[in-house]
């Protein structure tokens, strides 16, 4: 019986390697390999975001390998071990076991905070670093776990930067915005964002006249659109996922809601090129404060081209996931070791500033990258332009929206 189990666990181990491994290791002996895990929900209701993140990680690994791999480790190629979290926290946590067994040095993930909380906790027992590509809930970095590294900004930072930028935009337009309506998904990031906005917006002289939470999924936005209309708010601040955002945008248009601006914070569709393509009319001038890459960097442009060639949409999931692999690669380069403990030390000391994200040098404080920042994007024509901060901007912000001539 014992043999059966050992054989099973061996099969288990080889089975877990999802990217071209089973080739005889003789051939690979010349090129060393370092394994990096990617834990994403590839099935279940978060499948879209998870799949996009996995794609971003793959592009990054390809680029880094093509440029010679990890030079300090003899040109070691990055091999991704991609595991499905099935949109369920206990599966995400169990998947960490699989990653450990596959001998990854660190891993990225996991799209939803609920999944990331479970996975990082499980990983802590193994001293395995998780570099979060997305983990907006602040609890992610407030548990005192040394193996947690959140590369992208959390909900608190996203909201406060969004508020600062809104203030600047509003001042630039002569303080034309005085009232706001908030529509948000009732999960962790939407609720937290609404809470912060409720405290901070009045300090900017903007009164909140309507706050509407809604579940995901939500089938009908007519009531919500009407309430926004009845509130006569100057701007709408939405924070939800792509499907609901799309339905909401349609309902707003159909109910002839007039707004001076739509200013999303972590909006699900506002930074999604698919939304721009399929709902072009209502998408015009919609602004978002979200994760986005620096469009001026050469590597960003290369990524955009690769994504287009692969027939995928360039969403922020692809970008942040790509960047976290870059961060891990840099840590490998400096530490010259795939040892898990050394990876944690190497990541903690990271000052990496060459990622495609518009961040300065990385600085992890309690696992939170203090130099991470969201940026403002705006939909113009059939493109998503970065409008704020100016140093990364590809277009000038238009605020408020021009009045529609119906």
């Amino acid at each position, binding site marked *: 019986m014992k043999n059966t189990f050992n054989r099973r666990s061996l099969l288990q181990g080889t089975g877990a390697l999802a990217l071209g491994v089973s080739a005889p290791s003789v051939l690979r002996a010349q090129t060393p390999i370092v394994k990096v895990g990617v834990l994403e929900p590839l*099935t*279940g*209701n978060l*499948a*879209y975001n998870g*799949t996009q993140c996995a794609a971003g990680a793959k592009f990054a690994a390809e680029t880094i390998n093509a440029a010679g791999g990890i030079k300090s480790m003899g040109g070691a190629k990055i091999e991704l071990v991609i595991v499905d979290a099935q949109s369920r926290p206990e599966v995400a946590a169990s998947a960490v076991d699989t990653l450990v067994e596959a001998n990854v040095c660190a891993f990225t993930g996991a799209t939803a905070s609920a999944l990331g909380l479970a996975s990082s906790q499980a990983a802590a027992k193994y001293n395995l670093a998780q570099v979060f590509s997305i983990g907006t809930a602040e609890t992610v970095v407030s548990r005192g776990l040394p193996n947690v590294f959140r590369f992208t900004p959390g909900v608190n930072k996203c909201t406060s930067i969004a508020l600062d930028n809104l203030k600047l935009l509003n001042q630039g337009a002569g303080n034309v915005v005085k009232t706001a309506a908030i529509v948000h998904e*009732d999960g962790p990031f939407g609720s937290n964002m609404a809470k912060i906005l409720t405290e901070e917006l009045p300090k900017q002289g903007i009164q909140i006249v309507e706050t*509407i*939470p*809604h*579940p995901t*999924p*939500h*089938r*009908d936005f*007519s*009531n*919500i659109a*009407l*309430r926004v209309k*009845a509130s006569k708010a100057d701007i709408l601040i939405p924070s939800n996922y*792509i*499907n609901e955002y*799309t*339905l909401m945008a*349609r*309902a707003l*248009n*159909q*109910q*002839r809601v007039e707004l001076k601006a739509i200013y999303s914070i972590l909006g699900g569709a506002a930074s999604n090129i*698919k939304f721009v393509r*399929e709902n072009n*009319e*209502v998408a015009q001038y919609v602004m978002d404060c979200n994760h986005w890459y620096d469009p001026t960097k050469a590597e960003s442009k290369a990524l955009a081209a690769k994504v287009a060639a692969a027939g995928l*949409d360039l969403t922020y999931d692809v970008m942040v996931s790509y960047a976290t692999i870059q961060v891990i690669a840099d840590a490998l380069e400096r530490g010259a070791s795939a040892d898990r403990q050394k990876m944690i030390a190497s990541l903690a000391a990271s000052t990496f500033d060459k990622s495609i994200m518009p961040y300065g040098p990385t600085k992890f404080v309690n696992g939170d990258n203090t130099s991470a920042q969201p940026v403002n994007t705006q939909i113009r024509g059939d493109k998503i332009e970065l409008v704020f901060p100016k140093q990364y901007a590809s277009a000038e912000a238009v605020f408020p929206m021009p009045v529609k001539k119906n």
Partner: protein
Amino acid sequence: MSILIIPAILSGMMMGAVYALVALGLTLIYGVLHIINFTHGSLLMLALYVVYFLNLQLGLDPYWVIPIVLPLFFILGYCLQRGLIAPMSGGSEQNVLLITLAISLMIDNLALYFWTSNTRSVDIAYAYDTVEIFGALLPFGRVVAFVVALGVAPLVWAFMVFTRTGSAIRAVAIEKRGAELVGIDVNHTYAICFGIGTACVALAACLLLPTFYVTPQVGYTFVLVAFTTVVLGGMGSLPGALLAGLLLGIIESLCGLFLGESLGQIGIFLAFILILFFKPSGLFGKRAGA
């Protein structure tokens, strides 16, 4: 808030018409085969994809493909019941339920594998058009769905009452053995009923896609409400499904308005629970109790 009540009721009715259309097929299947059909949501999703691809590849409008999609899904439903569900369930009712659950798992994941989880929606000229009724701006697509629902429910009912096949279906529903004795092919009849139910859900898909979207998970979004509609209307009752759908749409809309869209969802389920307690046979139900 009070000025929003009338528009809320009207938009609730529009949404309710969609629930009614989805529930129409479900109530037929439940009323006759006594199956709580978990595949219904997945079939809705499948139909939505078919309509989407017909639009994408052939440029066909979702409304004009109804004559294509309905027969297609009738056949699919017939084969599913006759070829998979009936032989695999071995007669046990509990098993049938789990088998429909397993089939829906299969369909959902096949869709995920082949078509990915990207949200798809159709881009048609009238997607943003509205119709003004009593001061409320109602999406054109929803109004069409409403009108069709009002028309289709009586049509299916008439089919059940006035045609031979319809009578056979009703006979089998009431007394299976007796029906067999008078020469009705029960298996064939069950399969026809399932086929009609599936065609109904395909119709719902054609009317839903213009104002909605499709992902592999979209079935879940509608299936629980569909069950509630069936129970509320009375299992097996077609006018019941229509009325219950409209009613639930209104309840959902008003609860959403007054309790908030998150908490408002309990309106549907509380209605469900209350009906099960006080009149389990539903509004138009024929049988009392289980």
